[in-house]
């Protein structure tokens, strides 16, 4: 019996490109797991998050950093967070989170649901003006802010992780359309 093995493929095969002053790079080494808070379980959840990831629970629209697994916790919905982290076992990130949070949350692996692009460099916001309806001004969308919105008919989660650095997550199946939207914006604003 042959030894069938499955090899993994990232949505954009680890795509990287520099356009003008901005670098676009697919992020492939992070796992993303959602954790929903059971009705009435807010305190237990906060405690579990602190214990499991060393993170405080963010309000919706904000993110916090934990001290385990390089975790970042994103407040996505009133009763749901996403945990973005470096997984010990990339095939079982939900298991890692479930173990960390025990019964304090309902966890679902989202790692393969999204393509993640990091855009970094001066001028990144000028490019995003062409597709992103959110106000990304420092005073309105400071570091660690997170929001889901729509760009070019695609759902996109925007996370600010630096002065000129954003993580953008969009559904995996339309990853190529999303990359095209992002890169066309950069081409349109580059000199």
């Amino acid at each position, binding site marked *: 019996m042959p030894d069938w093995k499955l090899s993994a493929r990232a949505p954009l095969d680890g795509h990287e490109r520099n356009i003008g002053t901005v670098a676009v790079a697919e992020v492939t080494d992070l796992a993303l797991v959602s954790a929903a808070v059971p009705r009435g379980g807010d305190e237990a959840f906060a405690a579990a998050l602190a214990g499991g990831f060393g993170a405080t629970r963010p*309000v*919706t*629209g904000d993110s916090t950093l934990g001290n385990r697994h390089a975790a970042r916790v994103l407040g*996505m*919905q*009133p009763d749901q967070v996403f945990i973005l982290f470096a997984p010990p076992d990339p095939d079982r990130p939900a298991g890692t989170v479930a173990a960390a949070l025990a019964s304090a949350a309902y966890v679902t692996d989202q790692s393969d649901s999204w393509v993640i692009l990091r855009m970094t460099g001066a001028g990144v916001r000028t490019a995003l003006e062409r597709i992103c*309806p959110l106000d990304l001004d420092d005073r309105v969308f400071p570091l660690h802010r997170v*929001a*889901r*919105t*729509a760009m070019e008919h695609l*759902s996109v989660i925007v996370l600010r992780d630096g002065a000129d650095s954003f993580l953008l997550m969009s559904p995996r199946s339309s990853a190529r359309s999303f990359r095209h939207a992002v890169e066309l914006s950069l081409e349109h604003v580059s000199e």
Partner: protein
Amino acid sequence: MIIDHPLLGPRDAAEFVYLGDACLIDRPDPGDENAARLFHDYLHIRDNPAGEHRELWFHEHGDRSWLVVTRNTLTHEIVRVELARDVALARGRDR
């Protein structure tokens, strides 16, 4: 249009999907002896006011909250935005 989301602040209404009158929260009791008439009215009959209208919007490209937006149908002015879940609980809906 801009909807001032109670958790997220002002967001373009294009991120939302509209359903209709917030009376759709008040789903009748299917066990009521007049259930057929109650459900007919619930689903079909509308006040359709020219003025303040409480209505349901879903933040599809956002935090997936259903909101109850109180908006004037003559001027489009929005005077209040609430989480629909809070409204539903306040109206006595539970399990």
